């Protein structure tokens, strides 16, 4: 041992590949942090990873723990760059992915166009055999048609096959036998069966999930293999983990089998980071907000736990039904409001912000790359919230003329000044984000006053205080390194797997043993899977959730339940359900309660980072002051704000707003009356009322 542990997170995005490296000295506990950025290199993404390691001066040989996040799956889906998939279903149900659920979200639009299925009808085939909802065999599986199906699929150039049968969540044996026979007939084809991804009911959602997983499987597998070969080729001998949508990391082998679980790994690592940060600073209830260039995403963390759900859809919005992916994904709300969101005036003189974004090209008008439309970033610049002489950390010279022209153009349509337009843009953008934050908090029965707002991403810190004031949160925290916070979150992640299983059980005598049996069976499966990766049972921690509802309802409420469930504990579980339900929905019923399924979280620590708190510095905050400038706080007027250099802030420093903190990646806007403190980890705590 070198006396050091080196942990690295790499994150492959559409434009850049990011690196964060923590080198922890065992003796002192001191961590040296390196960050680097290089271009993403499609289609040889591993090259970008190797480049960024080199750029950051990190020798792959020295890395103990390497976490990796990637947008490869979501990109393959949204750009339709997967492979040709064949689908095999239960007789009578091959059209399931085309029929979908029949909904028309854009319901007044007579020209609504239904999303096209990922597998055309001629590649959707049926086999005989049928299970009941209890998992009992009604008709035996009939695979006599399989050789002909395989022959047709081969002739048609199919590269991956998805299998999805009715009620396979209750008994996967028909799917398992079909997979085995497929592998025998056609060993080289990529295959996936729906039960391997989820054990929950709803045939359209489960089938579509299997189809999309098959669609990206060869691409993702190739990507992961090349990544592994690339880093091991440079001498990496540590552990390689892949970021997942459920806020955990998983092993490369496991992810290669079901790559669809990576689909929302980007936001997941940030939200996990917010949960871990909350634990570090003693704030277990966190509203997490990630503002990027195009969108803002938010999620609620209660008592240190992120909420993981399987109700995830891509491309679903007010004008499209989208496609479901039934995998564990952190519960988040995303809206089309980011720094690059374009402000526009409709035919009725109403000002709107987003969801169209100026993106990186041409970007906000102030980038001077030919953008003529005012964005949220332009408004922030115009109001002095962003430093026009330190734009993008000093990398870009702000084209204030272009910003002025863009704002004035909107002002003419509205009959008002550029100043008022800029204030209007910021207020509307804030209002959009407040509504999103309410969706994850107030709308689910949580009082924002019990929560700390943790804001990150490029634009989080700019708007966080205004949002926090509007919501009335306890305080606002901007993490140290807010712009690379997602990568930090990845390094704080556990090896985590979420298991969802549908099973109906009335909460009455005898149910205790049934429920305990279901949990025990699922936990045994988890231990087996962890064991296969040399992680012993003693390392694995479980959290057990029951999904309950009043009899006849559909939607369930998740309740944390303990171990060793027996009939004696049912009353306690039922009481916990009533309480959770009433908090969320304002009333409770006398109706019987039933279990609809379980959710087991299995996690094991795999060498995550331990943070070391630094002592308070004796240096006064005035040492970090860069100067002052006029900042327009919209509703709170124009003030002379003190400007702080974020790179010079040290633990223990404290000051009050109006102020702005600038560092190369982030601008923190502090409103008048706010009180700011820097903690021992370098995080910025903003108390809304002084």
């Amino acid at each position, binding site marked *: 041992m070198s006396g050091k542990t080196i942990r690295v997170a790499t994150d492959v995005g559409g434009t850049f590949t990011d690196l964060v490296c923590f080198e922890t000295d065992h003796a002192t506990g001191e961590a040296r942090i390196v960050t680097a950025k290089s271009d993403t290199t499609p289609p040889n993404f591993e090259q970008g990873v190797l480049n960024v390691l080199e750029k950051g001066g990190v020798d792959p040989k020295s890395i103990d723990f390497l976490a990796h996040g990637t947008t490869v799956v979501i990109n393959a889906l949204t750009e339709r760059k997967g492979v040709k998939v064949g689908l095999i279903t239960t007789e009578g149900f091959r059209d399931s992915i085309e*029929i*979908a659920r029949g909904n028309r979200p854009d*319901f*007044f639009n007579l020209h609504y166009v239904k999303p096209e299925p990922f597998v*055309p009808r001629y590649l959707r085939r049926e086999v005989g055999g049928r299970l009941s909802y*209890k998992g009992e065999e009604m008709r035996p599986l009939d695979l006599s048609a399989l050789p002909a199906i395989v022959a047709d699929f081969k002739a048609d150039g199919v590269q991956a096959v998805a299998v999805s049968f009715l009620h396979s*969540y209750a008994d996967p044996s028909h799917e398992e036998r079909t997979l085995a026979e497929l592998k025998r007939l056609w060993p080289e084809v990529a295959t996936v069966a729906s039960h391997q991804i989820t054990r929950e009911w*709803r045939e359209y959602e489960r089938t579509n999930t299997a189809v999309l997983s098959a669609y990206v499987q060869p691409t993702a597998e190739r990507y992961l293999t090349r990544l592994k070969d690339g880093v091991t080729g440079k001498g990496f001998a540590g552990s390689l983990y892949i970021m997942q949508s459920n806020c955990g990391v998983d092993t490369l082998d496991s992810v290669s089998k079901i790559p669809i679980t990576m689909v929302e790994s980007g936001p997941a690592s940030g939200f996990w980071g917010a949960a871990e940060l909350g634990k570090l600073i003693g704030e277990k209830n966190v509203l997490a907000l990630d503002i990027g260039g195009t969108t803002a995403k938010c999620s609620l963390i209660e008592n240190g736990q992120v909420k993981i759900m399987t109700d995830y859809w891509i491309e679903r919005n007010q004008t499209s039904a989208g496609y479901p992916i039934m995998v564990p994904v952190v519960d988040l709300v995303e809206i089309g409001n980011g720094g690059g969101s374009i402000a526009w005036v409709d035919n009725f003189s109403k000002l709107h912000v987003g969801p169209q974004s100026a993106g990186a090209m041409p970007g906000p008008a102030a980038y001077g790359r030919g953008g003529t439309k005012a964005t949220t970033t332009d408004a922030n610049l115009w109001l002095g919230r962003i430093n026009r002489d330190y734009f993008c950390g000093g990398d870009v010279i702000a084209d204030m003329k272009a910003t002025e022209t863009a704002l004035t153009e909107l002002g003419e349509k509205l009959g008002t000044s550029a100043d008022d337009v800029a*204030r209007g843009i910021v207020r509307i953008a804030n209002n959009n984000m407040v509504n999103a934050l309410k969706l994850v908090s107030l709308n689910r029965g949580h009082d924002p006053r019990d929560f700390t707002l943790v804001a990150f991403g490029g634009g989080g810190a700019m708007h966080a205080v205004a949002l926090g004031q509007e919501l009335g949160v306890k305080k606002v925290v901007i993490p140290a390194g807010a712009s690379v916070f997602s990568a930090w979150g990845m390094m704080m992640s556990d090896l985590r797997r979420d298991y969802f299983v549908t099973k109906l059980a009335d909460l009455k005598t005898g149910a205790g043993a049934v429920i305990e049996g279901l949990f025990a069976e699922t936990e045994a499966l988890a231990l087996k899977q962890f064991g296969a990766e040399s992680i012993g049972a003693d390392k694995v921690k479980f959290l057990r959730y029951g999904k309950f509802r009043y009899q006849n309802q559909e939607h369930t409420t998740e309740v944390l339940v303990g171990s060793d469930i027996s009939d004696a504990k049912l009353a306690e579980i039922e009481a916990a359900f009533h309480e959770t339900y009433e908090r969320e929905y304002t009333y409770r019923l006398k109706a019987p309660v039933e279990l609809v399924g379980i959710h087991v979280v299995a996690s094991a620590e795999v060498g995550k980072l331990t943070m070391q708190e630094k002592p308070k510095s004796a240096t006064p905050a005035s040492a970090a002051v860069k100067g002052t400038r006029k900042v327009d706080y919209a509703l709170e007027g124009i003030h002379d704000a003190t400007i702080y250099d974020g790179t010079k802030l040290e633990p223990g420093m404290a000051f009050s707003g109006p102020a702005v903190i600038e560092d190369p990646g982030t601008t923190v806007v502090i409103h008048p009356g706010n009180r700011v403190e820097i903690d021992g980890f370098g995080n910025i705590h903003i108390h809304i009322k002084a």
Partner: protein
Amino acid sequence: MTEVSHDPITLEIIQNSLQATADEMFAAMRKTAMSSIIYEVLDMGTGILDAEGELASSGAGIPGFIGVLDKSVKVLVKKFDKPGDIEPGDVFITNDPYYGGVTHLNDLVVAMPVFADGKLIAWTANIAHNSDVGGKSPGSLSADATEIFQEGLRLPAIKMISKGEPIPGIFDIIMVNSRMPDFIEGDLWAAIASVRIGAKRLVELATKYGIATFETAMRDFMNFGEQVSLKALADLPHGTFEMTEEQDDGRFFNVKVTISDTEFTVDLRDNPDQDNGPFNAGHDDTLVSTQVIFKALTSPHSPANGGSFRPLKLLTKEGTLFHAKEPAAVGFYYEVGIRVYDLIWRCLAPHMPEKLPAGHFASIAGTFIGGIHPDTGRQYTIIEPQIGGWGAAFGRDGNSAIFSGVHGETYNCPAEISEARNGLTIDRLELCTDPGGEGEFTGGRGIRLDYRIRRDNSFLTLGYTRSRIAPWSIAGGHEGSQNYALVMRKDGTSERFAFGSGIRVDKDDVIRIITGAGGGVGDPKKRDPEKVRDDVRNGYLTAERAATVYGVTI
């Protein structure tokens, strides 16, 4: 802040919050409802109304419920007009179309007045289809009802909660009149929770911005709705357009639509007398159906509120089936409504081809199946609208298997859930490839859905239109195909239905639902041969019909 603000950004922020509140009410109700018709089919709507009952904002799963709540609240405001009649914490209910209920007795409208500083500033309200409200048949709809009395319990715009306390007896009356008392209780509480959450949010808004500003924002929002509609009217062809269309039962329906810069007038006075059966709609409901197609034509993507509908005028004659008189039965009002909607659409389609596709399967195809669950022994009732084919448009084929024009963000029930919940087996749910809808651009396909009954003495009730007269086509395309159900007995006999109630079905009988293809657009001979070959490869079309209808040899 107490002064009135006319700052447009503040008004806009309040308006956004009204929309967010209507959506939140919708989400709350959906999540807590007991009946799948509410939480899955989303046969429900929520709304925020001003103190007089004008619609300010709506959250809805289906367009057919957007314009209902204002009519209900206006009746409440008129009926409870004395001091002390309406107080903070009160909750009202109505379900009777002759007392502001608009639709039929199954739809319970729940409304709550919102007070700030002691002043009535708004109402929150919702409507949802309840599984059973009594009456002569299970599920309360019966094809042979002749009076509304046979269709369930009538709640003629009454108070059910006074100052936060349920009025003794009201819940008891409602529950004892239902065959599914637990469901109606659960669904009603979901509705109450929803109006309460909405009221709480509105009070917060009014407190924060001031009552006067809040009220200004609501008024301004409705004026905005009106401006959007007027602008759209200016862009539509002006004139009077007329259409007479034969119905499945041989009657003829007539509509005259007159469009000018400022008005869109729908004249339905020349139509048959009201029906002796339940195939009637009240005036208010006919107005709602008219509003749905009006909104689709004028501004499908802007918010719908009271102002949006100001330019719309409806003329009806009392005593006709579009303006039924008490005590006419109205159980199947929704099939009357969709006929009005489709008639106006068809009437205008030739005059605005870029705005209007060919006819769709155009029936709610409401299907009610019930009995005793063979595994749990509990009563179950399926209440489902069906999905079907939509018409082609110039330049594209129609959608397959989506809900009708008066349904919207409605979800069908997964077979896996239906089998568990209802104790029957779904043998198949697939696209129906029967002929129909051929054209240069083809109509979308309907479905073939087989329910296999698992226990004797179950029942089927249904009421479909477009069961004889097929969906209409445009410019030489072929008509679509019909909606109907087959009851296929285990002895091999089979019977076709469009309307019927309490049809007995037994173990191993199969109820097959067929919904129609949408109408085609253009001569099939002009269809791109490559697309015809794709259709054959995908099994949507036989090689034989490719040759005879499209002239393409495979």
